[in-house]
């Protein structure tokens, strides 16, 4: 299993990577895609919408099951990864790369300190 060190992890199995200008990329973790199975559909938050830390901001469908996508931080969606509409399997194949879900403008940088490091997240999922 792979958990890059540059990611900050939320206990609901999403990650966040900080970018310049208080922006961040968000996606799901390797553990999430592995336990969900093949993802066939992503219902992510639309551009311009507000997402809140720890709150559902969309859905992921795998194996006839719709699960919630929990945002690891609060902010406004600046950009949506449109490729996932036609290639939702990128969430499985490359969860930290081509499988990024949205880019957001962070509203509260303090939230990032509440997220887990790779090491803490590994412990949390019992690795």
């Amino acid at each position, binding site marked *: 299993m792979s958990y890059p060190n540059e990611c900050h992890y939320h206990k609901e199995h999403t990650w966040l990577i900080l970018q310049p200008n208080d922006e961040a990329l968000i996606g799901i973790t390797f553990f999430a895609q592995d*336990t*969900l*199975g*093949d993802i*066939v*559909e992503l*219902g992510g938050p639309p551009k311009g919408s507000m997402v809140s830390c720890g709150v*559902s901001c969309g*859905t992921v*469908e*795998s*194996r*006839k*099951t*719709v*699960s*919630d996508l929990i945002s690891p931080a609060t902010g406004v969606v600046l950009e949506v990864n449109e490729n996932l509409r036609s290639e939702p399997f990128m969430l499985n194949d490359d969860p930290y790369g081509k499988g990024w879900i949205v880019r957001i403008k962070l509203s509260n940088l303090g939230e990032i300190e509440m997220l887990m490091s790779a090491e803490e997240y590994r412990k949390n999922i019992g690795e």
Partner: protein
Amino acid sequence: MQEFTSSRDTDTSDEIWLTEHPPVYTLGLNRRGVSLPLRSDIPLVETDRGGKITYHGPGQVVVYLLLDLNRLNLAVKPLVQCIENIVVEALRIYQVEAELIEDAPGVYVGKRKIASLGLRVKRGCSYHGFSLNVDMDLSPFSSIDPCGFKGLEVTQLRNLGVSAATDEVTTQLAHLCERQISFAQLKGFL
């Protein structure tokens, strides 16, 4: 069902609801590429489950699984396998050999679908579930592409020479749900 799930806490017991529905088409949350049924005499209900479109009617057992997946230590993939096992075991009781098809969750007999599934997981708890065709009018299925697969044929226990009543199959499913969920839970903890 939604109400039960949103109001449950970590001490709430899991529940399994077994029922039959009057004729109804139900749509899953993601409707991309779904063609709607042509007939207007059967209502169409939008739901928040996974999967595309299906039909429910008398003579089909519908099983709702209201489970705390965190407490059971069950993820989506093993839960779906568990549901498939429940149906496979139920069919075995009636000497019907079932098949699973990779990338197309559900249970099939001779390439025809006999059981459908669709779930929603919210805050780690599941709702919706699966259905098994026993002794029903299958003709409403011909107006849809079940689960989004074009030309997929459906079957039922009666067409396979099984004369069991729907009530009897319901009872068998209740026992099997309990047993298979315990097995899956044990595996999760090993």
